[in-house]
């Protein structure tokens, strides 16, 4: 990317050594870099949870039940005396894997459906839109429940693939609607007419010409739905269809018994909540920067 800016200063060219993309990203997008750093930190904690966390997240310690944050338990313990910090560290695994993957899958599918619907228009558009409306008429949680109930459980590398599907499916119609509306205006742009006049195939026009131009709303929704997905995963877990106790998951830690103790032990809610917020915040920062970074118009 950096070498693209160089023709503007042809005189400087012989001495010009392109810096690596990483270095330019860090200098041009400091906030995005901060977001990325938080995401990487969480990912690191999740992957190496066995070594990083101070306690085993599932072992009950009835002596330390509901103990407030202290040196032994920096973020306190829950009603079963389990260390909240350790549970958060282990929970990062599920949160990032399920949250990010299902949001990514849902948004990408939604974007593809949305662009195709806008490009083909007419009857195709009508059929796709009515189908999406049927999906939209179900509450998110009900739709996810149906998917989980039909598919059952399917663990791959310790992650429930069908849970990802269940969370991704309700995201698809929502994203498709938004992407369709941006794609509709892009379809009317003369450069799409130019591509059609050049006789390019439909997939080529959709993926080469239209998709890059809807990346801004796509990235915004991708990061926003990470949070939704983490919360949806929590709701499903609460209903016994997602991750189940005693496995640590951020959403699960927020729901269930912790709400009974919010007066006596507010740290039980506070820290998982903060973790989710921080993750969402980091994804948003990173997503915004990525959007700017990928737009050639904002760089010269």
């Amino acid at each position, binding site marked *: 990317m950096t070498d693209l800016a160089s023709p503007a200063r042809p005189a400087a060219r012989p001495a010009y050594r392109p810096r690596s993309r990483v270095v330019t990203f860090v200098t041009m997008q400091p906030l995005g870099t901060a977001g990325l750093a938080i995401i990487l930190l969480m990912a690191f904690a999740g992957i190496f949870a066995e070594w990083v966390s101070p306690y085993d997240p599932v072992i009950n310690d009835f002596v330390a039940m509901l103990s407030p944050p202290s040196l032994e338990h920096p973020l306190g313990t829950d009603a079963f005396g389990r260390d909240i910090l350790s549970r958060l560290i282990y929970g990062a695994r599920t949160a990032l894997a399920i949250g990010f993957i299902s949001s990514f899958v849902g948004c990408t599918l939604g974007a593809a459906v949305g662009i195709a619907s806008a490009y083909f228009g007419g009857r195709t558009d009508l059929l796709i839109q009515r189908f999406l409306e049927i999906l939209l008429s179900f509450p998110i949680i009900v739709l996810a429940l149906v998917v989980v109930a039909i598919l059952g459980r399917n663990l791959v590398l310790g992650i429930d693939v069908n849970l990802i599907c269940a969370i991704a499916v309700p995201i698809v119609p929502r994203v498709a609607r938004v992407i369709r509306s941006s794609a509709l205006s892009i379809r009317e742009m003369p450069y799409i007419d130019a591509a059609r006049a*050049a006789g*390019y195939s439909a997939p*080529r026009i959709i993926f080469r*010409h239209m998709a890059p131009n809807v990346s801004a709303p796509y990235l915004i929704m991708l990061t926003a739905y990470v949070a939704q997905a983490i919360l949806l995963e929590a709701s499903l877990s609460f209903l016994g269809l997602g991750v189940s106790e005693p496995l640590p998951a951020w959403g699960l830690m927020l729901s269930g018994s912790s709400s009974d103790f919010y007066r006596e032990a507010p740290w039980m809610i506070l820290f998982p909540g903060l973790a989710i917020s921080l993750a969402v915040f980091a994804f948003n920062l990173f997503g915004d920067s990525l959007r700017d970074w990928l737009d*050639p*118009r904002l760089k010269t």
Partner: protein
Amino acid sequence: MPSQVTYKLYGLLQRPRVMQASTSLSPTNVSEREAFAEAGGAAIAPLVAVDGLEVAFATARGQVKAVDGVTWAVRPGETMALVGESGSGKSVSALALMRLLGRPAGRIVGGRITFDGRDLLSLSESEMRALRGRALAMIFQEPMTSLNPILSIGLQIMEPLRVHLGMNEAAARSRAAELLRLVGIPDAERRLDQFPHQFSGGMRQRVMIAIGLACDPKLLIADEPTTALDVTIQAQILELMKDLSRRLGITLILITHNLGIVARYADRVAVMYAGRVVEEGPAGALFAAPRHPYTIGLLRSVPRLDQPRRGRLATIEGAPPNLLAPPEGCRFAPRCPYRIAACAIDPPLREIGDDRRSACHRVAEIANGLAGDADAATLPAAVGVARPLLEIRGLTKHFRVKVGGIVGGSAMVRAVQDVSFSIDAGRTLGLVGESGCGKTTVGRTILRLEDATAGQVLFEGEDLVTVSRSRMNRLRTDIQVIFQDPYSSLNPRMTVGTIVAEPLRVYGKVRSREEARARTATLLEQVGLLPDMAERYPHQLSGGQRQRVGIARALAMEPKFIVCDEPVSALDVSIQGQIINLLDELQQRLGLTYLFIAHDLAVVRHISHRIVVMYLGRIMEMAERDALYEKPFHPYTRALLDAAPIPDPVVERGRASRALTGELPSPLAPPSGCVFHTRCPLATAECKATIPPLREVAPGRFAACIKV
């Protein structure tokens, strides 16, 4: 931008202010104007004087001085034109005068603006607000967006009356109706309660003028008031503005890029370039003997309607400077053909006698004929035997549109109705008409971006309407297109190189990356771009350069035939000439055939061999270029030619103004019989009843009119 400003204006107007009422329409400054005429203009103090104005905009890449030391003055009752290309600072200086610059980005950093003896820059915001809409009024370019869509027309005209003049509801309403009649809107009482969407573009601009005139202002600023309108409507609006400013004694500042409009309507002209005034003076003298190389270049680079076609258009090479880093010395020097060493020093705008000023070191030499006459190179005669490459027979395209809500039915738009013509290989056919006449649809149907409802499009004998999709895709390498808007016809996410090389790769015209790169470089050079521009993105290029990329993309397929859909109408005058010359050159070098779709009759005259005039989906007249312009047969062609202003005040003064009356009918409900009868000066009852066929009225000349 204009719409935002209007919004701001409305926001400010919403606060009620009670002021002394003066309800009469009678002009308060007519006497001033008469005095001005008697005194010969010299002794009268200017109404507005802008002195050394500097406006800076803070941008992400540094400060841009959009207006840098601009000085001009307008005397009461005069019409002054600010002329210049986009980015020359003409609109910004007018907005600065109204103190309506977008904050916080734009700031006035220097100079003085005096209006009617008051220093506008020292007024408080509330004093300024009392002047805006009262003594100073402004009309914006885009009539579609400068009226608030959810307020009735009446409310919007009454608003300044109630705010500034403190009128009550009833008085304001009757005055509003009076104003609507004044701007030529019939049935005023009823139309007051209608909303902007019920008015056509020309009518909306009339409403904007009515709002501007509501409080009987001393100064009216019109920022490109007719750029968005069709040529016959443009003539109506400009005639109205001229007439009203004369009758009511209003001083008018007309901002425009159209030299013809300046020649027809302005008393004084200030030519702006790169944030500065380069020449200023009375319109007649300035057009007859321009005293700045930029003015000379500008006047030579527009194709003329009143002169037979010369060879190449004289153009100003290069592009206007980037105001982030303006050149040292004279800003026009890098593009100036008469550049000398002294031009490294900034020339001041100085008096050159006869009430004129110019900012050029060589002004004396220019007066002595340094620039000479424009070269009158003749056009090479078309060679080869004429053989039709493309033939259109009875082409018809109807669109079905929904009217009303869910329960509403659908209506048929007859965009193109029974159109037949043919284009000879190696020639250019000009397709002219106002918006909605179907000219673009004809082009899109040829490209099969739209499917024809009926008729044939024969390309080398093959009917493009019925060929299979795969055959059509193969034929697409022979038929290419250049679009109007160079800003939106290139994918912003792709580099210039990718855009130009894509068809090469898709159609397997190149085998390797290196070959693609070499071919792209050749194509870019062919259209006058540097090969290393391949690495840039479209937004890093100027409008003219982007249009060149669009041409290179079309040429990549090595086509025989190119549909040029208004390829120069979005470009500045000096760039327009460059692109027209390029298209001309390419045609001669590569033997291309063009369908040139445009609304500018002068441009069409310059580039076309044969011309088709369309109106509401039908062909009105078809003839060879010179025959058509010398003696138009169809009343519509005559009206079009009359409405187009010519950049020469002497010619303009000799022309009778014969603006077409009436509005363009909706294509949803075209008139019966001859579609032009509602606006035709020759129309009779017979015209309403029969559809006139396109018949040969003279050898090679066709017209669809029973009166010819």
